[in-house]
């Protein structure tokens, strides 16, 4: 496995002189090609320290660091850092230089020629969503936090490193801009496929950004390292469970799709059918509600027995609104969102042409969650078996 790893930390440790307890103890960790590995944990667990051991901003007290199989524990730290993109929370743009000069720092340091640097700067600015014409000659003090961190990312990408280290990069930015930057960064990563170690204290950011998450405890001990889905489905101990916090099962619904469900039959009625038929179907199925559909089977309203007993069925105002429709690639989280607003405590699923397929109800969600938990547990049992 470790031969495939872009970054391999082998029994790396850090003890600050004068202290007895190590900040990082005996850590072995792999980062694979093209993945975002998120290091997350409570304050003081050593996640930032671990990150900074990788580019030797902090020198390890013990252990080895391998990049693409090459031992970089000793040797020039400056050379090492030029291969790695580094983005920090406070951004750290050089205030005395323009945006273009900031982004050009690494190419210039490596002796690229002027024309190539200019082209690269423009390219990077466009990539991070800053118009070169507008921003090239601005100074950092003129930028907002979100814009500044875009420049920070562009600068880190200067000479196209394969590896990036990001230390709470969006931590100092307001939630709305942070959300947007996260989305844009994920889109960028989809194209560039860098190998990234990303530190955050926010479990939701970890779930959103990470291909894998490492939940770190004291002294950077790995409590669980796995995909977000599996960690949410199966936290291995109380520490992880507490750290993920309440609502973790509900968060896990983000990773399950409507397409994985078997939708049960649900009573329905077309607009041209007699209301009495509808009442009959309700009584037959024991359901409180049915779905009124049009001649193309597109869902229109929830109708109860009371609505059907009235003089006429109004297809616009009668009964209750259906909420937003789900399709097969929507998540169960989105299904739950609709469900809790619905009079019938169910959410509507339609097919590609918009025709009514069925509903998602609480039983479906519970079944899907239990299945995911079981799969995760089986996975860990297999892992135990192969390790012993």
């Amino acid at each position, binding site marked *: 496995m470790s031969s495939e790893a872009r970054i391999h930390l082998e029994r790396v440790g850090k003890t600050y002189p004068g202290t007895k307890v190590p900040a990082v103890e005996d850590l072995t960790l792999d980062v694979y090609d093209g993945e975002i590995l998120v290091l997350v944990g409570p304050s003081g667990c050593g996640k930032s320290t671990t990150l900074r051991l990788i*580019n030797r*901003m902090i020198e390890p007290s013990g252990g080895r660091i391998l990049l693409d199989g090459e031992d970089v524990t000793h040797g020039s730290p*400056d*050379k*090492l*850092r*030029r*291969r790695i993109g*580094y983005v*920090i929370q*406070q*951004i*750290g*743009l*050089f*205030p*005395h*230089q*323009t945006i273009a000069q900031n982004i050009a*720092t*690494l190419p210039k*340091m490596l002796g690229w020629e002027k024309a190539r640097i200019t082209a690269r700067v423009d390219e990077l600015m466009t990539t991070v969503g800053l118009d070169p014409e507008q921003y090239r000659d601005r*100074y*950092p*003090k003129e930028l907002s936090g979100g814009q500044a961190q875009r420049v*920070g990312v562009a*600068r880190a990408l*200067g000479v196209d490193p394969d590896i990036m280290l990001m230390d709470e990069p969006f931590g100092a930015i307001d939630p709305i801009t942070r959300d947007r930057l996260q989305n844009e960064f994920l889109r960028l990563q989809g194209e560039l496929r860098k190998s990234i170690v990303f530190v955050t204290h926010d479990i939701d950011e970890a779930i959103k950004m990470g291909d894998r998450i490492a939940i770190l405890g004291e002294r950077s001990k790995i409590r669980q390292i796995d995909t977000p889905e599996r960690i949410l489905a199966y936290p291995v101990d109380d520490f992880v469970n507490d750290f993920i916090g309440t609502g973790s099962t509900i968060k896990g619904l983000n990773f399950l799709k409507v397409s994985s469900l078997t939708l049960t039959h649900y009573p329905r009625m077309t607009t041209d059918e007699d209301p009495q038929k509808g009442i009959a179907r309700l009584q037959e199925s024991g359901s409180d509600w049915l779905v009124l559909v049009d001649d193309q089977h597109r869902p229109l309203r929830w109708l109860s027995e009371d609505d059907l007993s009235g003089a006429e069925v109004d297809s616009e105002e009668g009964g209750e609104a259906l909420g937003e429709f789900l399709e097969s690639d929507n998540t169960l989280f989105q299904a739950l969102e609709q469900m809790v607003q619905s009079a019938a405590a169910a959410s509507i699923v339609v097919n590609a042409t918009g025709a009514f397929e069925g509903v998602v109800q609480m039983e479906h969600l519970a079944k899907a969650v239990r299945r995911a938990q079981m799969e995760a547990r089986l996975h860990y049992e297999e892992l135990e078996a192969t390790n012993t």
Partner: protein
Amino acid sequence: MESSNWFAYVRDNFDLILEATIAHARIVLIVIALATVFSLLLGVLVSRRPVLRAIALTVAGILLTIPSLALFALFIPLVGIGNRPAMIALFLYAILPILRNTVTGLDSVSPAVVESAKGMGMNPRQQLLRVRLPLAWPVIMAGVRISSLLVVGIAAIAVLVGGDGLGSFIQAGLTRRGLPNAANSVFVGVVFTVLLGLVLDMVFATVQRFTTSRGLRI
């Protein structure tokens, strides 16, 4: 004393006054140039070594407490009389403001900026020359300006150890107290020293403005 009298005195003795002013300026500029180079180098050297730093700043501070005439006279046995003992003493005085501002300026550079410079693979020399010094520069220049004003003033005493400068007008006026134009002479010394100080400060301010990045101006 009538002011018209004084202006007449200035007009009559203008070449002498100009000569003295230029001599005074020359002393100041040479001293400031040397003190800046020295203090910059020393400041960079001690900025990350707290013990050395404390020693350097304390010593430079103590030098300033030594009465100027005494410090000037101290160097006469070594280099004789004239401008030289004065300039050595002035050099020692000029160190403290520049040294202290160099150290403070380097300290005040945002740690995040230094962290990102280091994280990009800049070695300490590159960090210093490309990031830390340019960012500390406004504070350093402020120290240079303070030193130059200090030196302009104290240099007036150079005349007492045989040196040149506008001090000669002050001295002449004081020793010939009561005689005609004595007061005018003193005032010439004072006024032109002040004017020289103002002009030098304006020159340095302009230099500071042109050497400071637009990104740093408030």
